[in-house]
């Protein structure tokens, strides 16, 4: 999978690049509008991460350029601009997702995965991890081909954990992911523990191996050992 990161904040870009390069992603980084447009016209990407405020222009101009070239890349805007107008404008021009800064790298990763899944969608939208099989459209989870009863939230959590395989996820990152728009008001993240516990129990009862590990003092990790 090839990603293009267009971001002028070097430190942020390096962290994103490192986090994403971890698995089967290749992440290229540019920080100028001109370089971005050059890269986009020369190569094909699976997903483009686009900051809106760049030293030599506006991210929206790149977005328009991509659409003018009839490119089919998935585009996620990552910006500090959080107004509804900017978001609507972004979606109108053709962005697929919008992530407001600051965000957790784990959140960015699952958004990219979800976008690529939607883009490459061919009849079935299924995530498989060893004995676990998740059908995203019908919202069902099977372990060893046996359907287990899960809530929407638990499926969401499962996808988030699997998507961030081998990465430590803090309680607040998980809480923010699960609570969506409510995250800004939520100052208690204890409910994460209950969700993890329930999911773990359901998976174990269905005969799945124990992939969810607690990481002392930090949070949780999905690990295939």
């Amino acid at each position, binding site marked *: 999978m090839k990603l293009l990161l267009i971001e002028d904040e070097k430190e942020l870009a390096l*962290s994103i690049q490192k986090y994403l390069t971890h698995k089967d992603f290749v992440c290229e980084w540019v920080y100028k509008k001109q370089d971005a447009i050059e890269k986009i016209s020369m190569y094909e990407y699976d997903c483009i991460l686009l900051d809106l405020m760049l030293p030599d222009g506006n991210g929206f101009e790149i977005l328009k350029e991509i659409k003018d070239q009839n490119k089919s890349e998935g585009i996620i805007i990552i910006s500090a601009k959080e107004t509804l107008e900017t978001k609507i404008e972004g979606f109108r021009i053709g962005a697929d997702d919008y992530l407001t800064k600051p965000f957790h790298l784990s959140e960015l990763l699952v958004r990219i995965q979800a976008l690529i899944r939607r883009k490459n969608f061919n009849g079935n939208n299924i995530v498989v991890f060893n004995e676990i099989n998740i059908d995203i459209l019908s919202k069902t989870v099977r372990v060893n081909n046996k359907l287990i009863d899960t809530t929407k*939230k638990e499926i969401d959590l499962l996808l988030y954990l699997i998507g961030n395989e081998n990465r430590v996820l803090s309680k607040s990152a998980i809480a923010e992911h699960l609570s969506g*728009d409510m995250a*800004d008001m939520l100052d208690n993240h204890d409910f994460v523990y209950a969700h993890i516990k329930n999911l773990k129990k359901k998976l174990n009862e269905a005969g799945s191996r124990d992939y969810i590990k607690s990481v002392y003092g930090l949070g949780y990790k999905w690990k295939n050992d």
Partner: protein
Amino acid sequence: MTKNLLHTTLSVYLLYSLLILLIAAPVLYFATQQLYLQEADDTLLLHKKEFIQYVAPTMDKEDIGAWNKFNRNRKIYPAESLQNDSIYNTTYYDTLDAELEPYRELKASVTIQERIYTYTSKINLVESEDIIKSIGLLFFITISVLLAGLFFITKRLSLSLWKPFYKILQQIETFEIDKTQTLQFTPGRIEEFNRLRISIQKLIERNTSIYATQKEFIENAAHELQTPLAVFQAKIDSLMQRTDVTQGQSEILDSLNTAVARFNRLNKNLLLLSKMENAVYSDKITISLTNYIHKNLDFFKEQANAKNIHIKIDIEKNMEIKLNPILADILISNLFLNAIKHNIQDGEIIISAKKGNLTFSNSGQAMPLKQEHLFNRFSKVNPSEDGTGLGLSIVKKIADINHFKVSYHYTSNLHSFTITF
């Protein structure tokens, strides 16, 4: 007790007028009476002088009988010795009116053909009483008309004179610094009021501009903080992935993570407050409050589960309000989360929505909260808690910009926050 400006002026005028009337009436009465007596005395003395000068030298002893017979008011009696003149009040029985009437009488000694007589002369004072009464009445009427006239002229004049003042007052009363409105004062012809108007206008303009700068600063600051915050967050996320993190380091990382999450929430909420002040969410639609409460109920129940809180809902089937949908979500979420956050283990939450009121009641600490700073930014009941201290001020702000009322009550161990639409 405060009094209206016009009432105060008029009541002072009225009091003064009454006082003058009360004092002037008896003074006038006595003064007129005194003047009349003086006049009567002068007349009596003049008559006596005339008598001595013209009548007495031509009189005989025999004439005295005739004189006394034809003069009702002037009599002459024989006397033993000479006496000094004396004037006094006395009463005589009037056979015509059949009553006692007051008289002024002069008693003097006169000499007729070298014999001493006593000369008495009297004037009826009944007429004088009538005149004094008439004068008094006339005076009273004149003064009353004068005062009444003054009173009404002052009232009318004051009303029109103070009109610009009341106009300015009314405009200042409706002025709110966080609303985008400009005050339009029209210049008048009274110099002092023009000065007042100009000063107030300057004051308001200055304050509005300071307020705008402040507002802009908060919004810019919150906005500018997002990028470094994003770097901070990303670096912590990256650091957490390292396998060589020791136990002590992971504890520090966890604290940092909590802190950055709180920082982020604070920043977002400050931005939200700024945006509300900038009237970003001013477009309203009719929404069903009932639906909005039910929409996120699962999420809140999940939050409440941690404390095993029982939620009781008592809402009208379809309660509709006019509000921006984003603000409706924020309003309900903040009230709900507030009720959860300050609740006790195994506590309860009662949500009631009826007759234009939305109330969230929750169990909590067993004493009422101090109302004073309850809705202020960063006011916290418990300073050590994790909250941003912005939740209730966001609720208040939403209510303010939509002209709803927020109130807090504490009854039977329940803390209640009510929004009146």
